[in-house]
């Protein structure tokens, strides 16, 4: 069923073994979550906006073929070329061919979760293309040969001292330099050179507008814009679910996106690309890679609404304490725990269980994806298709068996109550008890609920004991 993949609990255990770091990570994300709350509450019509955002996306996903054709038609009219990729492999091939067509060997890339999903960087590097990630966080993780651990804050798991070490090694900053201002300055100088050298800039897209054939990219650093304006060729890689029908719909999403992501009122730059710049080329790659399959699934279709703000991660008590890498998935956190198992259930089966079903993700999601309901539904789906771990399967069928024999069940209950009260700690908290690793087992009640019920409510003929209050 599954081979080399590590489960979320195992990877999370590695992360949480450093208590101080876990706490630091938790606090850093909670800080972002608090900023999001302040930003959201500054807009009186916030809930109305979420409702609109959800409805517009529902409409878009339902009418996707027509809207994609409209987008293609308009973008082509403006002078862009539109390419279609069914899979990640096709996407990578298209990008490579475009680079060859434009004789490019140096590429600057701004943050794009889609190209991460398609593993574009390693593919291009294998084919002799130098790819430089230009978002500061992405550049940091690229230099450290790590994947991003968060979709908006790729290097949120790394401490400034560690960034200092990485930059000392690769950019020649003084040893021991750990001041974010100075480190950012060093990256600025280093990356400017790369922008000026590159023949092609690759960006993702936050939105593609069917009505106008335009692409919208939101950044704070300005890296996407430098990457798109300085080289002659701009390649945009965009998932087919990123469409919005009309220009006016952007108002809804630009109001929600940055407030949900980082608590800013809007990103510093919200760039609207309509056609290539004079003398330049604009190549747009539309990518399916499993999106049309997800669209077929009524229960999970709404996951396609995601605008990749990261709010569900920032608020998730499990994500905050286990770190993005424990998910082993391009998109971590609650939304990633829906998307990845839907795409590859065998390797991501543990993710929907990395959730306490607290529902906070659903509450903050700007496009109203019912995340915790989907996570619960996914558990059922994974169990039905035998994708859950053997230990879970066995214990669940044991439980089901036990519960179908009332006498046996009550006998086991009595045994459990006695054991909790009398067995020594080393037995109760042995290796079998993973729940008790970080928690205390409850105090055993003196009687079972069944006995209590029989005494108090069981026989209507018997008068109820007076309530004492």
């Amino acid at each position: 069923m599954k081979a080399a993949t590590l489960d979320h609990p195992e990877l999370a255990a590695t992360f949480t073994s450093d208590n101080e770091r876990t706490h630091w990570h938790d606090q850093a994300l909670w800080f972002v979550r608090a900023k999001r709350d302040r930003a959201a509450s500054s807009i009186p019509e916030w809930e109305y906006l979420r409702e609109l955002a959800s409805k517009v996306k529902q409409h878009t996903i339902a009418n996707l073929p027509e809207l994609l054709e409209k987008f293609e038609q308009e973008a082509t009219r403006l002078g862009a070329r539109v390419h279609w990729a069914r899979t990640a492999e096709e996407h990578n091939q298209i990008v490579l061919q475009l680079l060859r067509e434009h004789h490019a060997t140096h590429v600057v890339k701004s943050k794009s979760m889609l190209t991460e999903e398609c593993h574009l960087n390693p593919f291009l590097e294998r084919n002799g293309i130098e790819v430089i990630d230009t978002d500061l966080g992405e550049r940091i993780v690229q230099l450290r040969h790590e994947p991003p651990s968060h979709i908006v804050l790729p290097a949120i798991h790394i401490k400034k001292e560690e960034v200092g070490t990485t930059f000392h090694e690769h950019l020649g900053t003084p040893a021991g330099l750990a001041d974010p201002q100075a480190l950012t300055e060093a990256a600025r100088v280093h990356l400017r050179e790369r922008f000026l050298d590159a023949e092609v800039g690759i960006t993702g897209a936050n939105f593609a507008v069917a009505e106008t054939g335009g692409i919208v990219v939101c950044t704070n650093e300005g890296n996407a814009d430098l990457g798109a304006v300085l080289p002659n060729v701009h390649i945009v890689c965009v998932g087919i679910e990123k469409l919005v029908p009309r220009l006016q719909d952007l108002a809804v999403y630009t109001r929600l996106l940055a407030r949900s992501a980082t608590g800013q009122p809007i990103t510093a730059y919200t760039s609207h690309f309509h056609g290539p710049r004079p003398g330049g080329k604009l190549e747009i790659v539309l990518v399916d890679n499993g999106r049309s399959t997800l669209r077929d699934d009524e229960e999970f279709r709404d996951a396609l609404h995601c605008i990749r703000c990261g709010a569900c991660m920032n608020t998730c008590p499990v994500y905050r304490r286990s770190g993005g890498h424990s998910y082993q998935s391009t998109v971590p956190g609650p939304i990633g725990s829906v998307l990845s198992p839907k795409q590859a259930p065998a390797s991501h089966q543990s993710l929907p269980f990395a959730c306490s079903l607290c529902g906070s993700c659903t509450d903050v999601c700007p496009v109203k994806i019912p995340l915790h309901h989907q996570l619960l539904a996914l558990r059922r789906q994974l169990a039905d298709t035998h994708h859950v771990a053997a230990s879970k399967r066995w214990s669940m069928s044991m439980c089901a068996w036990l519960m179908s024999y009332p006498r046996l069940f009550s006998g086991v209950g009595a045994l459990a109550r006695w054991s909790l009260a009398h067995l020594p700690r080393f037995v109760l908290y042995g290796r079998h008890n993973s729940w008790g690793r970080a928690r205390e087992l409850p105090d055993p009640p003196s009687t079972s609920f069944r006995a209590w019920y029989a005494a108090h409510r069981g026989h209507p003929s018997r008068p109820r004991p007076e309530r004492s209050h």
Partner: protein
Amino acid sequence: MTVPELPSSDRSRQAILDRLRSRVLSAPPLPDTAKGPWVAYDDPAQQFETVLSTVGGSCRWFDDRQALEGALREEFKAAGGPTACWLSTGSSGSVDLRGAIDRASLEPLAVVAAEGRLAVAENAAVWVDASLPRLRAALFLAQRMILIVPRSSLVNTMHEAYEQLRISGVGFGIFISGPSKTADIEQSLVIGAHGVRSQQVWLHA
């Protein structure tokens, strides 16, 4: 080097569209996103200034356009490096923004000034039409940026802004809210990530 054919993008196109069409979905009608119960500020100018300061920019107010242009000349004189300016009333500064992008003259820019078409009170964003390639490059390469907007072009929200924009042709337009920034290292806010290190919006009557 021989350039191989693109992977059969046409076939993929048809396959994706066919797949999507094989499943007909019902959905609510497209709601109106232009009109709504949007927030309206008592003093949009005040709101704009407050928000701009929280995103790292700052405001200057001028009684009339003439006073503003005088101040801009002073600013350019004191810039300590090449300057460029693109206004509807004419351009100034030491670097011409017409023609093709040439990095050598744009990279050292100390200040770039440009006209904004709209200013949005809720998020301090200013819409700049930067279809001119050199202006577009200058907006990101310069060290400092000044955006010039008439006070009358202030709107409350993004809905009003997009209502007025109506893009229909080739071009590049951008909402700019504050200077370039990052918090990618331990959530410490650093101004001046890749683009400008300081940003001002000059509003005039």
